[in-house]
């Protein structure tokens, strides 16, 4: 194997895949990346067994071949190089010789036989989504996913490909986001899948603003074809909870409030809350919302009031301030609408004005008030 590539092309390509390498794994081989020289392309592949990412760049291939190299080490070496041509030469024992105008460097590689193979995703189930739409939906949903693998289904985003609309749903059991777009055309099939959060994070990072994203679905995998890179991910094959059932159909109590004021107030007041629970207590009245937090153990306490419009008798309800602030941060409109039924039931938050062809609903569960 022998190829010549400019430092920048090599660095950018390697950087795309480097985060797929797991930080901790029992399988040492996964700390490596696979370099593949074919035709006039250099491909770099990284995998954590769940997600596989391939990135490529065109370069001068002097002799085709492959090698696996410790990924972080390679990145460190290339990072320190100025923008010059680098020639990689790999011998039959997988010793790598890097040559540049500055000098020579040697590192050891291994044969690719040990390296997990790239999943084969061959399917006619292809879906197209505008990059801008996909990016927005990922950004607005993944924060609500669970990080606890006790319930694997909740560690991913539930995607529903329906006749008239495309939906993404995320929940950790305490809050939930449901985002619907009709800015999409049905690909000729309907289905639902759960995509791991980590894969979507990588997708969002590599998505350009413009253009259309092609997504391929097979029985167990999803493939995102992005400019200069492909991201493969295993799907989470678990039943997703019946989320529609927990979204109440109608509500009587409704509060409309300025979003920016609400967020700032929650953030300030939450600094005085108990650091274990982050509990803030909302007191809703017809023209005013009071936000209160207290930390009995350390004697901290805060109270703020902001104007609102509320259509029912006074109500006290408590939330984890972090969950509440997370949700509010992801709403774009100037004002939000919060709908509640009682102190123990879900609160539903909408933007007062939905974007065109889009429907966002956020749901938050309260903290039970002790008395």
């Amino acid at each position, binding site marked *: 194997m022998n190829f010549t590539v400019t430092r920048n092309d090599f660095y950018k390509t390697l950087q795309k895949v480097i985060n797929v390498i797991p930080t901790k794994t029992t399988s040492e081989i996964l700390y490596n990346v696979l370099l593949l020289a074919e035709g006039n392309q250099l491909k770099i592949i990284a995998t954590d067994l769940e997600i596989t990412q391939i990135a490529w760049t065109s370069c001068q291939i002097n002799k085709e071949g492959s090698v696996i190299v410790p990924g972080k080490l390679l990145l460190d070496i290339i990072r320190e190089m100025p923008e010059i041509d680098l020639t990689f030469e790999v011998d039959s024992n997988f010793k790598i010789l890097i040559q540049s105008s500055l000098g020579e460097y040697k590192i050891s590689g291994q044969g690719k036989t040990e390296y997990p193979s790239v999943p084969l995703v061959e399917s006619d189930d292809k879906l197209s989504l505008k990059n801008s739409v996909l990016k927005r939906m990922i950004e607005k949903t993944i924060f609500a996913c669970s990080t*606890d*693998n*006790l319930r694997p289904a909740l560690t991913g985003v539930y995607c529903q490909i329906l006749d008239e609309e495309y939906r993404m749903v995320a*929940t950790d*059991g*305490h809050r*939930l986001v449901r985002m619907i777009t009709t800015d999409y055309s049905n690909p000729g099939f309907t289905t639902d899948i759960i995509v791991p959060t980590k894969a979507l994070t990588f997708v969002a990072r590599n998505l350009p603003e413009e253009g259309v994203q092609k997504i391929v679905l097979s029985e167990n995998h999803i493939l995102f074809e992005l400019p200069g890179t492909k991201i493969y991910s295993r799907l989470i094959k678990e039943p997703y*909870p019946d*989320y529609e059932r*927990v979204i109440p159909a109608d509500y009587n109590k409704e509060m409309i409030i300025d979003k920016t004021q609400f967020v700032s107030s929650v953030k300030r007041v939450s600094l005085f809350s*108990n650091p274990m*629970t982050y*509990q803030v207590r909302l007191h809703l009245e017809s023209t005013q919302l009071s936000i209160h937090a207290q930390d*009995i153990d350390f*004697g901290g306490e805060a109270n703020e009031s902001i104007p609102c419009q509320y259509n029912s008798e006074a109500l006290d309800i*408590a939330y*984890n301030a972090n969950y509440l602030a997370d949700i509010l941060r992801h709403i774009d409109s100037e004002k939000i609408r919060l709908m509640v039924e009682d102190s*123990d039931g*879900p609160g539903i938050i909408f933007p007062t004005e939905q974007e065109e062809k889009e429907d966002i609903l956020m*749901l938050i*569960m*309260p*903290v*039970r*008030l*002790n*008395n």
Partner: protein
Amino acid sequence: MRVILHVDMDAFFASVEQRDHPEYRGKPVIVGADPKGGRGRGVVSTCSYEARTFGVHSAMPISKAYKLCPQGIYVPPNGRLYSQVSKEIFEIFYEFTDLVEPLSIDEAFLDVTGSQKLFGNGPEIAGKIKKRILEKEHLTASVGVAPNKYLAKIASDLEKPDGLVVVSADKVEEFLQSLDISRLWGAGQRTQQTLRKLGIHTIGDLAAYPRDVLKQKFGKMGDHFYRLAHGIDDRAVHSAEGVKSVSNEHTFGSDEADESILLQTLLRLSEKVGYRLRKKGLQGKTVHLKLRYENFSTITRNKTLDHYTDSTEMLYSTVRLLFRKNYQKGRKIRLLGVGISSFGRQENQQLTLFRAADEQRSELDRLQDILKERFGKNITARAEALAVNQKNKKKK
């Protein structure tokens, strides 16, 4: 919200003497040192309510008691008898919960929060305990039922003898309002004097003082007083054994590598641990898996949950996760263990969306517990867990 009972036997030693000596009943009985016709040097240990009407009380010099009540029946303490009776009474407590913290031979705190599913709410449990003590020992006890130890202790003392006082969580301040500051835990004569000089005579008076002022006046104790005045006391009931963890292990008759059998065993162990947990009224946060291969190499792994649990389902799904992450497939296993530790209780419970499913599970736990209580430990098991039994039987 916790439910704490403080059970205090009424004039314990004297009542035992009156029970065993019918001729003492209705008379002033004073258990303690020999009065030696007024020249005795010891103190009164306990005296009957009849003696108390003469002004006699425990810890009083016996000579003084003799002066107040020369006609009293003076009895030397029979320690062995009292500890025997005490043991029997504590056995009654353990019928209702394992979270029993003895304060002395005749009083204890009981955390019955987790026992309510089986035995009814706090006041009901208190009533049952009183009834059991009366039936079994022919003695009376006074019980305080409250959200914490401090309030329960005060409550049990208010209607002695044979009292039952309930302080509900929403009436704490009301309950404390008119109580004299001598009821304040940690306030000795001197402190009480200082408080009274400030015009603080009742706990209600004290509650009106800001925390900062109390801190200035009393230093560290100020904070303590502030909390007590507002009925705040989050000390846990520490059971006698000081339970730190609950666990069960199973050693296979012959080493086992069949994953379905291993998982079924984990389920059975989770059921056992869950049952013991609920019986003890405990909820834990850290779930442990112990795994010993045939060559005796042993690994233990644990996972801390984001909430306290006593659910079999939760235990099982957590150990199953630990097992799948750590078990080297195909290797034969000699022993499996499931455990839980970091006990506590969720104070402000974050509610969850998919609650209905969780509630169904705890309903299943509850039913299984009741059946076990009534018909013995082997009466029920989850179907998946039963499969392993069948298989084992076949082997034999």
